[in-house]
């Protein structure tokens, strides 16, 4: 680079007026065999990126991201679970030596030592040897760390009741039963129905809410007449028109299908 007197600049700027030729740098003497980043290496790298992206998109399409019901801070019975990459820490805090009065050990001391050592690895392992088998202490400690994280995550996943977890977070539809309707009156006259499904149609001691599953009016009629599972057949005591009205009312999530309060979904 030219220095001192005689330098010329574009107008009053600090940009040198003399154009440098756009020729590649000379890296022929760099240690080891090399190739150009642009375009040779970048094109191949993009191909790997493209394959990765396809897998990523398949995952996204096959498994839509989960969403539970809206947060309810008063629901103290909810069993919490952090995202999977924090499970190892969460699990660690369940062991006797790292919980209760020793929480500090599980929450600060152990992760602090592990992550502190990770951060300071270049100063803890100062030798010039790079091959993992030639520095057994560093490699061994790293393997120990990786295995414990995998083990703790595994234990946490194993101990967690996934079915209960899925159920406790489920989005529940708000069903509003139109109690003024003709169909609800028909239902109230059916002692047998009320006995299991409750006086409000939303379930009782022996049966679920009548709106719990999605059925068409035809299917509802069929279930009332012929029963389903534990539900006995032929309990309905009324005319065919009444049965029809009730079935449509149930299939329409507790709203009169001919009225304007129906739920489109």
């Amino acid at each position: 680079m030219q220095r001192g007197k005689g330098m010329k600049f574009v107008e009053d700027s600090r940009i040198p007026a003399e154009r440098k030729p756009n020729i590649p740098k000379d890296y022929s003497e760099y240690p080891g065999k090399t190739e150009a980043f642009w375009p040779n290496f970048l094109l191949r790298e993009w191909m790997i990126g493209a394959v990765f992206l396809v897998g990523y998109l398949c995952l996204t399409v096959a498994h839509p991201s989960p969403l539970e019901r809206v947060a309810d801070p008063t629901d103290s019975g909810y069993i919490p679970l952090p995202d999977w990459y924090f499970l190892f820490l969460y699990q660690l805090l369940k062991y006797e030596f790292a919980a209760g009065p020793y929480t500090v050990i599980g929450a600060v001391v152990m992760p602090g030592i592990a992550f502190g050592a990770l951060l300071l690895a270049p100063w803890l392992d100062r030798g010039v040897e790079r091959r993992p088998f030639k520095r057994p202490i560093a490699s061994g400690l790293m393997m120990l760390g990786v295995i414990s994280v995998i083990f703790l995550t595994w234990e946490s996943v194993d101990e967690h009741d996934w079915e209960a977890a899925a159920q406790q977070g489920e989005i529940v539809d708000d069903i509003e039963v139109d109690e003024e309707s003709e169909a609800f009156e028909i239902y109230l006259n059916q002692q047998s129905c009320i006995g299991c499904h409750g006086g409000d149609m939303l379930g009782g001691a022996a049966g679920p809410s009548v709106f719990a599953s999605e059925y068409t009016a035809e299917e509802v009629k069929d279930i009332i007449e012929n029963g389903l599972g534990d539900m006995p057949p032929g309990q309905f005591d009324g005319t065919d028109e009444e049965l029809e009205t009730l079935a449509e009312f149930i299939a329409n999530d507790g709203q009169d299908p001919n009225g304007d309060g129906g739920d489109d979904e």
Partner: protein
Amino acid sequence: MLQKIYDWVDERLDITPMWRDVADHEVPEHVNPAHHFSAFVYCFGGLTFFVTVIQILSGMFLTMYYVPDIIHAYESVYFLQNEVTHGVIVRGMHHWGASLVIVMMFLHTLRVFFTGSYKKPRELNWVVGVLMFFVMLGLGFTGYLLPWDMKAYFATVVGLEIAESVPVVGGFAKALLAGGEIIGAQTLTRFFAIHVFFLPGALLGLLAAHFIMIRKQGISGPL
């Protein structure tokens, strides 16, 4: 024509050195899976960056619909998930990307560790990398609360309880993150700000340092 545009800009900004720095550098042959298949382990860092870029882009699109307050947060995510065209894809990419970035970063860390690449003269780059690992975990933790559903809320409650158990600074850290005694409206807006402004800002700075150092020092040689 292109050459003329290039010359015009170059005369005003002297971009030739920059172009040479960005595009014209060599890559050692031993990191190329086309030469030795086992070199695929050298792809993890690049893939981590790739997922990070996707996270930034998908996150930008998510904020077009997301409303960071406790009344609307859940509704806006529900709407995005169920009503918005391709909303489920954009949210899905952000959701799965958060996991993938952790996995890729973990693998990249292991590669760098077991090839001893953090040794002299690359110590500082290792430190910057580990700091990025912490930033990523912070992004995962704060992002988890934003949908404001049951698992988001209670995971945050537990996380902040753990933070509170730290001696001396615990109470302060919890108050700083939660914005008060209870985990509620203030917590959500704080987590949103941290997730969208503070941590990405820190991450971009660290990424720049990471890449500049790689360019300066080159990729470590074969074992």
